[in-house]
């Protein structure tokens, strides 16, 4: 029912916003403002949960926390209880558990931009506040937090869209969100208009999200002076304080990555030992890399131009383009995929009519049922992500840079390509990483649009889950996580905020 589903969705999003916001911002502040043993490791480790899709964290914890699973069995053994009925912990199939699990893997979306902001921009102001005698708490509350608001808003926007579009975790954990309801209406009642109505409701939620995000980012210019931004001087924590800081920071890493990954590794290990490696794993990994890679390339190039369009074609049309690019991210994957079917069919029809008229032959379908359809769906769905990253990157560049390019006789386009682009690599790379991971994890559109005989790691895992044997998907799940790690590692190498630490005195 719509009101119930809407309530569940709003509660879920509110909860995830709190968890992801607090964890993401808190950790960003921890690694930016303090120096303690293990900080450099933590700095990087905090990104790891980004590699774990929501549906994987859900099924890992479902097994781990089940009354028959290792955690409760261990507890019972510890307490000397015999039957699983003697110890009743709250069931993990619930809204609060869903909020926690989603928050634990989505907080890096907040951590990443917020951390970059603390690191690259806020240093001067924060140090000014310190030198005026403000304590660490006051600096955080009165200076850092307001400064970070746009970054937090950006990150939360992304995290909440992910949460809204999640289908696997909500289904596993029995949370009836709008997205789950879209499926039920569509699949069980063959009621596409009804499903579209619910999809509209979820679109309304997205509009509210975008509104809140714009408001959060609102009215703040981020042009900095042309000199290289200076990182913040860290306050040193010694002894117990340092250990506590490290422990606090490691908690989300452990819960969002180490525990589920270790569980997957163990499950995959026992399965491979028993049944051997799944036959098609290699070709599925290749499929994932291929389609996600192609889509990433296209999305980053298009995203760059979309982000630069206000400078290229004027603020009014450019702004519209930027917003247009972000639209796909708001659509549930399945709705987008279904919506693509008709235009793709039309394009195929047009093309075949054309070739028939010109050459007298009818080609095979080039849109529907081919990789093109899949890549197109990915690009539409995730263009907003790369655009956002490029937008942020451009905004970070000193304005004088574009002007300088133009005074050298380049047009806006030339300035973009020759002067700004070389400075934009970090932003492009971080955009590419996010798009790639999103594509590799994407499920509903992949399921609907992929060609014959093509499986990706995600569809393999979903297939196992569909027949109730998700433990058999552990190897594929582990690989999805590993695929997700590659770009995370790339991000660490390319992002100047991460690279910079090698040039800093050890902290």
């Amino acid at each position, binding site marked *: *029912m719509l009101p*119930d589903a809407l309530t*569940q969705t709003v509660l879920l999003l509110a909860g995830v916003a709190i968890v992801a916001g607090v964890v993401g911002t808190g950790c960003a502040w921890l690694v930016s403002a303090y120096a303690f043993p293990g900080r450099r490791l933590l700095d990087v480790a905090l990104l790891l949960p980004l590699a774990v899709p929501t549906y994987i964290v859900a099924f890992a914890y*479902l097994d781990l926390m*089940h*009354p*028959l699973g290792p955690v409760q069995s261990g507890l019972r053994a510890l307490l000397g209880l015999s*039957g*699983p*009925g003697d110890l009743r912990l709250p*069931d993990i*199939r*619930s809204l609060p558990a869903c909020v926690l699990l989603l928050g634990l893997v989505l907080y890096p979306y907040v951590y990443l931009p917020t951390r970059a902001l603390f690191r690259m921009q806020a240093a001067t102001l924060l140090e000014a506040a310190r030198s005026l005698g403000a304590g660490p708490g006051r600096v955080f509350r009165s200076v850092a937090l307001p400064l970070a608001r746009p970054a937090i808003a950006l990150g939360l926007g992304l995290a909440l869209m992910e949460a809204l579009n999640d289908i696997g975790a909500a*289904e*596993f*954990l*029995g949370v*009836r969100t709008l997205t789950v309801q879209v499926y*039920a209406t*569509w*699949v*069980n*009642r*063959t*009621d*596409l208009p009804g499903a579209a109505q619910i999809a509209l409701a979820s679109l309304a939620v997205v509009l509210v999200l975008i509104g809140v995000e714009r408001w959060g980012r609102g009215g703040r210019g981020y042009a900095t002076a042309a000199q290289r931004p200076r990182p913040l001087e860290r306050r040193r924590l010694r002894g117990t304080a340092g250990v506590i800081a490290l422990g606090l920071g490691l908690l989300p890493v452990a819960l969002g990555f180490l525990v589920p990954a270790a569980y997957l590794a163990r499950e995959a290990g*026992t*399965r491979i030992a*028993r049944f051997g490696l799944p036959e098609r794993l290699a070709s599925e990994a290749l499929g994932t890399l291929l389609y996600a890679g192609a889509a990433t390339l296209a999305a980053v190039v298009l995203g760059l131009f979309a982000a630069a369009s206000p400078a290229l074609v004027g603020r009014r049309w450019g702004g519209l383009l930027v917003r247009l690019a972000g639209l796909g991210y708001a659509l549930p994957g*399945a709705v987008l*995929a*279904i919506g693509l*079917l*008709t235009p*793709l*069919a039309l394009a*195929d*029809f047009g093309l*075949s009519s054309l070739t028939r008229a010109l050459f007298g032959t*009818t080609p*095979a*379908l080039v849109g*529907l*049922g081919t990789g093109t359809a899949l890549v197109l769906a990915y690009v539409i769905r995730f263009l907003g992500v790369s655009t956002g990253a490029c937008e942020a990157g451009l905004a970070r560049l000193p304005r004088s840079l574009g002007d300088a390019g133009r005074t050298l006789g380049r047009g806006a386009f030339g300035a973009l390509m020759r002067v700004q682009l070389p400075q934009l690599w970090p932003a492009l790379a971080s955009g590419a990483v996010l798009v790639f991971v999103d594509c590799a994890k994407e499920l*509903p559109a992949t*399921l*609907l649009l*992929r060609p*014959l*005989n093509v499986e990706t790691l995600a569809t393999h895992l*979903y*297939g*196992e*889950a*569909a*027949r*109730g*044997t998700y*433990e*058999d998907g552990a190897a594929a799940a582990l690989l999805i996580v590993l695929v997700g790690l590659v770009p995370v590692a790339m991000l660490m190498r390319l992002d100047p905020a991460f690279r910079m630490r090698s040039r800093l005195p050890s902290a």
Partner: protein
Amino acid sequence: MSARVSFAVAWMLSLGTMASAAEVNLYTTREPGLIRPLLDAFTAKTGVTVNTVFVEKGLAERVAAEGERAKADVLMTVDIGNLVDIVDRGLAQPVKSATLDSAVPAALRDAEGRWFALSTRARVLYADAKDFADLKSIRYEDLADPKWKGKLCLRSGQHPYNTALIAHHLVKHGPEKTEAWLRGLKANLARKPAGGDRDVARDIVAETCEIGLGNSYYVGLMRSGRGGPDQQKWGEGIKVVLPTFEGGGTHVNVSGAAVSKNAPNREEAVKLLEYLVSDEAQGIYAKTDYEYPVKAGAPVDPLLTSLGTLTIDTVPLTEIARNRKAASLLVDKVGFDH
């Protein structure tokens, strides 16, 4: 250089013709891993390659959009509702085949040959093995009895397996009684309706609940140990009863297939369907998937016969399919999943 190019072109062309010489394209809502042994056996026997795509949601939409040049030859589903839906949308074509007609009982196929059931499965009761009192004659209706309060585990009411059962109840008892029954079921739930049928068995073993509903083949899959020792423990930790409707039989659903309206390889498509109802294939259905065969006289796996004698209820499958939308709406109306 040009020789190399023309060679490459010739090679590609030959690939194209080779592939189109003997192949059949299977679009399925059924996870292909389950039917892989069947398809491999078919290819070994006939030399026809089977290309598969698993489209769990939106199979009909995709085939409809592909239209006249659809690559789909055979459309396969694991729920009667989805199967009839394909026919209702005009995506299937009639098939006249003496082999199919004699192998599949009339109740399990369309009179015009637009769909055929290939295997059947019963919706059975899983119960705590330790407490197995007077469940032998339990009926689906009894599950709403308040004596089961806090003791019932089910997957989502919106899952086709449950929607079909609820649709069946609708045909038997009408909307008011079905709504009351659903409210009773909901009041008895021990946890949120989620996960799969295997989770029901696992939760019974975990003493989260005492009874629940699941498909018959999961019992075989779990007990056979093919899913590993944990699942075997769940399968052996439950007793299984074949419930019936008041004065009727047990609810069954089917996996089935249709030949796509614009099938480019119609001949191979029919050949595949005919193979799937052959003695050999029906034996594989029973042995590897623990399903009930549709063909009379085909062997049933001992793991299944040990569950008891299956008496299928007489309500026609098409009647159940027609009511699935109403059933799905009722599930929402009583807030079953919330």
